[in-house]
């Protein structure tokens, strides 16, 4: 038992020790762990810090890269285009002046023509001149390319910043567009590099935000959770990305087998039943694989250590009595490397046997698929190759435990939550639920995500409608057009009448940049969160309609 306790006190240190499949290093570090059971070794701290900084830099570094790229682009484009634009504006002003002069002199001529002022004639002549003037203005506006022929400067720094952002996010407003040849060439190259970079950053931050969101959501749910909710999450079928249904069925089967087993154990109403069950249980336990017994022992140990669960103690006792001299092997458990992960998998499979199911069936499931179950329980990055039992050994107090819960994490630990809730003699069962192990993978409902996105759009709409004096519909329309990267450009903050080029206008432009970048990140996050569920739902609908015929395996 002492060995078990030392394991528990090590906290979330297990995973990093099993980084490589190298036996020697694992044993060595494990030994080190043994020695420094009660304090954090410097090597531990260092490797922790290293992973922390790696994560930090991969996210932060990419953010900084994007920001730097945008700013560099802004400066570059501003330099290229500003002089040309000034020249253009100067030309335009001069042209208009000339035009006006021309027409005013025409008007003068007309007025001189009529010595006596015949209002009608004069007015009609004047109107004709005005109309000509107007068409000249319209033509100039069209050919010059600017939809507005005002004198506001487009290529300020913030204008160029918005321009760069609109390129790399492929929104492309177009209110500011390059006129020089070099500007156009540079735009193309800037886009070729910038768009993939942006996509990379978006996927990166989308995953990060999605994980945070799931974490927050599951915590919010756990706070208000009851046993039924945790056992409900047992039913969650989690399909790993590359492997398909069989392994998830495996795990579901085994997970339910575990709960069933504990329920079997707990369905003791009277002494006779108890004795009978004990005998049954002992028989079942005896029939287990030694490694299976080991794992079961760990589970029971954990339970016993956590809250002195009567039932678990019983299991433990039985296991000990059965295993006899195998007790010593418990010490090696956390150091178990990749090889024996296969054994663990077979353990989990075999546990289904205790339910009385057909043994041959399950062995068929098990054979030749070594590691598929392990893949489920492993971090989606595959960074920690931890066997699945590690979470069973560690305190909840360690927080997240060793395993980052990627979408592939399956609740092998459901044994505790599900089993604890339905015990008749489970005096410790409510307390058991407190120790919710490395967070159960709650899937965030699609409606919540959609509401979040819609709220973001509405919020942006409110802010812009106040700032830019657009209507609410117009602002919402602008937000939608921007966030979907359509980017028509008919509404752009910061360039409305009188505010372009001013300090306020520039601030508005920058806020617009921030808004749209954050909005795109949120959309990436929502895609991340809901894509599986949406795909599953669409498949369901398709199957329902009958487009896809049901597969016999399903």
């Amino acid at each position, binding site marked *: 038992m002492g060995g078990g306790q030392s394991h528990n006190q090590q906290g979330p240190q297990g995973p990093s020790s099993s980084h490589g499949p190298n036996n020697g290093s694992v044993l060595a570090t494990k030994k080190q762990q043994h020695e420094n059971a009660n304090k954090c070794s410097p090597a531990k701290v260092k490797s922790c810090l290293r992973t922390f900084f790696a994560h930090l830099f991969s996210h932060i570094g990419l953010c900084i890269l994007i920001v730097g790229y945008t700013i560099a682009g802004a400066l570059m484009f501003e330099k290229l285009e500003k002089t040309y634009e000034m020249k253009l504006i100067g030309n335009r002003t001069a042209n208009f002046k000339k035009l006006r002069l021309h027409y005013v002199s025409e008007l003068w001529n007309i007025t001189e023509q009529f010595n006596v002022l015949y209002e009608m004639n004069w007015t009609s002549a*004047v109107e004709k001149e005005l109309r000509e003037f107007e068409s000249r203005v319209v033509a100039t506006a069209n050919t010059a390319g600017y939809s507005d022929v005002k004198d506001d400067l487009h290529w300020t720094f913030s204008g160029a910043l918005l321009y760069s952002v609109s390129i790399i996010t492929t929104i492309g407003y177009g209110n500011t567009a390059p006129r020089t040849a070099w500007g156009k060439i540079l735009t193309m190259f800037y886009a070729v590099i910038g768009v993939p970079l942006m996509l990379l950053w978006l996927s990166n931050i989308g995953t990060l935000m999605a994980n945070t969101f799931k974490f927050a959501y599951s915590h919010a749910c756990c706070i208000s959770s009851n046993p039924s909710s945790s056992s409900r999450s047992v039913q969650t079928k989690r399909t790993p990305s590359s492997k398909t249904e069989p392994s998830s069925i495996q795990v579901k089967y085994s997970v339910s087998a575990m709960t069933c087993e504990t329920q079997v154990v707990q369905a003791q109403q009277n002494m006779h039943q108890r004795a009978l069950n004990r005998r049954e249980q002992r028989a079942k336990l005896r029939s287990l694989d030694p490694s299976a017994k080991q794992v079961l022992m760990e589970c029971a140990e954990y339970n016993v250590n956590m809250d002195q669960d009567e039932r678990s103690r019983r299991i433990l006792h039985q296991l000990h009595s059965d295993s006899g001299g195998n007790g010593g092997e418990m010490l090696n458990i956390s150091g178990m490397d990749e090889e024996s992960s296969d054994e663990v998998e077979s353990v989990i499979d075999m546990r289904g046997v205790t339910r009385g199911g057909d043994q041959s069936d399950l062995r068929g499931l098990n054979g030749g698929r070594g590691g598929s179950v392990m893949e489920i329980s492993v971090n989606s990055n595959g960074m920690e190759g931890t066997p699945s039992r590690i979470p069973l050994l560690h305190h909840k107090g360690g927080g997240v435990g060793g395993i980052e819960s990627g979408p592939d994490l399956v609740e092998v630990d459901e044994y505790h939550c599900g089993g604890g809730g339905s015990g008749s003699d489970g005096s410790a069962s409510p307390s058991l639920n407190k120790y919710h192990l490395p967070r159960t993978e709650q899937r965030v409902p699609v409606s919540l995500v959609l509401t979040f996105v819609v709220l973001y759009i509405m919020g942006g709409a409110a802010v812009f409608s106040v700032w830019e004096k657009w209507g609410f519909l117009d602002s919402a329309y602008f937000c939608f057009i921007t966030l979907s990267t359509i980017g028509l450009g008919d509404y752009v903050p910061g360039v409305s009448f009188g505010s372009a080029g001013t300090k306020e206008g520039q601030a508005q432009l920058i806020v617009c940049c921030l808004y749209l970048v954050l909005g795109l990140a949120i959309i990436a996050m929502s895609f991340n969160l809901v894509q599986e569920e949406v795909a599953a739902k669409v498949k369901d609908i398709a199957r329902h309609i009958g*487009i896809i015929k049901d597969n016999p395996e399903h």
Partner: protein
Amino acid sequence: MSDLEYERRLWPRIKNAFRVLVAFTFSHVGVCGLVVGYMICGAFLFQMIEKQEPNTQLEDVRKIRNETANELLSIVLMFNTLEKEEFFKLANAAIKNYTEEIVNAINLGYEGEPLNNQTHSTSVPTENVSWSFSGAFLYSLTVITTIGYGNVAPRSPWGKIATILYGIIGMPLFLLYLSNIGDILARGFKWTFARCCQCRWNCVKPRRYLDNGQLDEEAVPDEEEQITVPISLCLALMVGYVWGGGLLFANWEKWTILDASYFCFISLSTIGFGDLVPGDAISSTPGREDEIQLSFILCSLYLLLGMALIAMCFQF
């Protein structure tokens, strides 16, 4: 067989047929047609919604023009003897005002009075080309591909709402189209590529021999499956397409080649500034609306094919 039996047999067949039809619609070929059909519907929808706008614009501008004329008149009448400088100064100011008003109107989509309409009667101006059928078609295309030029944009509130809804449904549909078409094109391309490579390899690569010394013919189909098209070929294809489009549009729209390639690139990357859009240069000279419409259609086809090619390259 009795009627009841026949009916019972008929119903599953109808359901089956329906199922096949729906499956086809969402399959490869069907989704093309679905997207094109969606764009056509969108074109009609936007045309219907947005067509009314220019009339009010026209009215507004006319009103402004009247006001300016009246102002000028009052200027003239103000002076018993008209001083040239005074007149010039005041008239200049009035015209400047007028210019600003026109510019604001242009900002809001005003396109100028058609020159063949000389009277002040309520004759309907000639068809506004931007929101003609092909213009609306191009607009629908730019919405669902998220290119979003912006040279034509909805002015009415209903147009904006319609754009939002149209986009929400259309964008996933277009992505579906891309993935399907990309799939087909990628397979076709790989097959052709494999054939070409096969011809080349047959001359160079030593053939595999089976145990009994016979030529292993079955090795070849395996290689087909694992053919990976080199990235350089994909890039060359894309660059070639952009360049080709550049030549085409330069010819058609009288742009420079740089401008035209720039336009192709910006469109195909779905950035879509809208500073250069086909039909712009031509629209200043009235009466060539057929050409404009043709250029819109051409542009749409070019974009559809181009995005399919990009999707294909991504599949490699």
